């Protein structure tokens, strides 16, 4: 890594809260979306002439639509509880990466335009006009937030910086100041069906190749069906699973689980993406549009169950929002939702996470494993932020922590936990979530991974951990990229179903 122009944080013997380094990350900015991308998103191509007026207008609209934003703008008392909780602050010392200061970029504008004291005494209450400088600061620092919600765990009022970041990004989009990476992905998805822009025939080819590889490896005909009407399960998984390493190892694992359990399943080329970047930009409409593909595919294929593959923010959207966005869930009385509810099997949670699915089968004794096949691995588990703090698995609070661990322990013998303040609800983001997984933000990504890398280093040195399992496509891609910066092998990261894949008995071995 000789070519990078920034300093990689160094492991610390005694981790302490860093001293402030004002402006340390002020230069960090992603590429701005071009006119074509913006137009396809339905946003202005470039910064509109009356952007200040339009931004404030949009701000006002969002304050009326989102209670979260309205309450969070008013409630902060600057107590400082969150100041040392953000991975980007811990690794850069930039004070504007303290969650409260990040929110304050927006709150200062809120005060100026929407509150009496801010209109009368701006400097007294820290209110600011929305100038171009302030807007540029928004663009820089709201794209230094991975919307991981770690700060919201510690806030006495539950203020969630992710909500603030999403609103700010939405405002910037609406005045023609969008981020290239995220918006490009949404456009690709709407055209082709997945974030990677992998068209149907290519997907079919890939899956066929996969079947051949597995046949060669195991001698068993494990199938990866595509667009099969009448299948029991529709699997919606991040498109990275179709060809990126180590993601594909988990896809192999899902297929083996379906095979071993004898449950018919299918993928959909139309809905070949679990990821939903609409979340990152705070646009309800885009998030809904992306999710609608899953609804349409489910109705067309006539499936009874919907299962979601290993992807953090995708699971948050699926678990927490699909019922609301596209009527995929239970309990609704409106015709739109009832159409899908009638089709889906009410005996199962809709949607289910692949870990819930696998863990159910394990509990029913329908899967058998040769655990020793994973004995060359000493495994730890990285909780992905959106799963940990934005969703659940199973039927009790905290199931999202237990179930993936249960699956790992059912398929492997060597499991080690990382430091308690870095896992479960306190887990650290991989540094690449929330729409920053792009090479133009590589410095941010490398630095943001630092707190996780420190925790990993501890168990790697102490207990010989050589495999960090995770259930998020972004975590996998991010770690594969940044692990080498910290002296680790990039293959140290992998999926939970990669471990399942290694140990599972397919039932019909030759």
């Amino acid at each position, binding site marked *: 890594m000789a070519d990078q122009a920034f300093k990689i944080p160094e492991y610390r013997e005694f981790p302490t809260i860093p001293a402030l380094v004002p402006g340390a990350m002020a230069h960090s900015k992603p590429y701005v979306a071009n006119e074509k991308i913006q137009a396809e998103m339905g946003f202005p191509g470039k910064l509109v002439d009356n952007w200040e007026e339009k931004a404030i207008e949009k701000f006002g609209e969002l304050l009326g639509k989102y209670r979260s934003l309205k*309450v*969070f703008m008013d409630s902060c008392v600057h107590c400082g509880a969150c100041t040392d909780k953000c991975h980007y602050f811990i690794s850069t010392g930039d*004070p504007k990466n303290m969650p409260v200061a990040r929110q*304050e970029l927006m709150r200062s504008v809120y005060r100026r335009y929407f509150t009496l004291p801010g209109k009368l005494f701006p400097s007294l209450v820290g209110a600011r006009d929305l100038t171009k400088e302030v807007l540029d600061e928004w663009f820089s620092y709201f794209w230094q937030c991975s919307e991981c919600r770690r700060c919201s*765990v510690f806030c*006495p009022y539950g*203020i969630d910086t992710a909500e603030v970041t999403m609103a700010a990004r939405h405002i910037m989009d609406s005045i023609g100041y969008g981020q290239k990476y995220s918006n490009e992905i949404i456009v690709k998805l709407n055209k082709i069906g997945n974030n990677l822009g992998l068209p149907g025939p290519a997907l079919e080819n890939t899956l066929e190749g996969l079947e051949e590889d597995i046949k060669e490896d195991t001698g068993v005909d494990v199938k990866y069906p595509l667009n099969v009407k009448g299948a029991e399960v529709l699997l919606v998984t991040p498109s990275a699973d179709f060809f990126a390493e180590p993601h594909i190892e988990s896809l192999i694992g899902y297929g083996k689980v379906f095979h071993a359990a004898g449950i018919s399943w299918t993928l959909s080329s139309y809905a070949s993406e679990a990821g939903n970047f609409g979340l990152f930009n705070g646009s309800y*409409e885009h998030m809904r549009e992306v999710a609608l593909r899953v609804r349409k595919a489910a109705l067309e294929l006539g499936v009874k169950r919907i299962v979601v593959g290993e992807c953090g923010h995708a699971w948050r959207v699926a678990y927490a929002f699909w019922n609301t966005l596209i009527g995929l869930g239970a309990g609704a009385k*409106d015709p739109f939702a009832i159409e899908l509810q009638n089709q889906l099997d009410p005996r199962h949670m809709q*949607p289910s996470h692949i870990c819930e699915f696998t863990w159910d089968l394990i509990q029913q004794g329908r899967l058998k494993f040769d655990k020793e096949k994973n004995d060359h691995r000493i495994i730890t588990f990285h909780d992905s932020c959106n799963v940990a703090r934005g969703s659940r698995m199973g039927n009790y609070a905290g199931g999202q922590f237990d179930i993936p661990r249960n699956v790992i322990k059912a398929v492997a013998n060597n499991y080690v936990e990382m430091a308690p303040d870095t896992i479960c609800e306190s887990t650290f983001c991989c540094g690449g979530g929330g729409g920053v997984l792009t090479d133009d933000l590589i410095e941010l990504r490398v630095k943001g991974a630092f707190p996780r890398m420190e925790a990993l280093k501890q168990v790697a040195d102490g207990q010989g951990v050589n495999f960090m399992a995770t259930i998020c496509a972004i975590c996998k891609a991010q770690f594969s990229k940044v692990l080498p910066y910290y002296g680790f092998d990039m293959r140290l990261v992998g999926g939970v179903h990669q471990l399942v894949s290694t140990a599972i008995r397919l039932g019909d071995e030759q």
Partner: protein
Amino acid sequence: MTMFLAILFYLAFVIFVAGVAYKIYDYARTPAPLSIPTTPAPTTQSGVAFRMAREVVLFESLFKANLWIWLFGWLFHMALFLVLIRHLRYFTEPVWNWVAILQPFGMYAGFAMAAGLAGLWGRRFLVERIRYISTPSDHLMLVLLLLIALSGLGIKFFMHTDITAVKVFFLGLMMFDIQPLSAHIGLYVHLLLVALLMIIFPFSKLLHAPGVFFSPTRNQVDNPREVRHLAPWAAQIEKN
């Protein structure tokens, strides 16, 4: 001065009540279009009530975050709560029994309140991160609260005032029958500052008090697979 204070308190009372009521109405009418509790979150309504109770009585999240802020913040708020209860005696005749029982605690709570505030203010100078995020109004708010606490302690312990007259004054205010207040500089300062606090309450960060109850990350039940959370404006999109 009596007349001035009487009018001021009527004004402060109206601004405080109407302002906070409007804010509560505003929070309540604004939809929460998505299920966003910070998980793990309770899966039942009673579970949410319990979570909220822990949040507002014990400051659970703050406890997890930072022990110093928790210590000073919790000390201040609990002491303030006792002090407010103690002050009910100026507005009730006869004084409610449970208020009378809590009287002595409320008296010493005044010191705890001042200590908590001093601790919180100290952090705004001593801790670099908190110094960075503090605005002038953050300091002034603490000064205001501290002066209220100190002036209250002052007229209790050092420069006694005629509290019977104070009580007659406030009982009178409640009946729209203005009674004379004894001239006392400490008392005037105390009352003026309290009125000021009431007036700025609905326009300031003190809105965290009603706000916490409306925080979706804390007050939502974790049940999105069982319940559809469709906001009216979002349902409208479905019709298009």
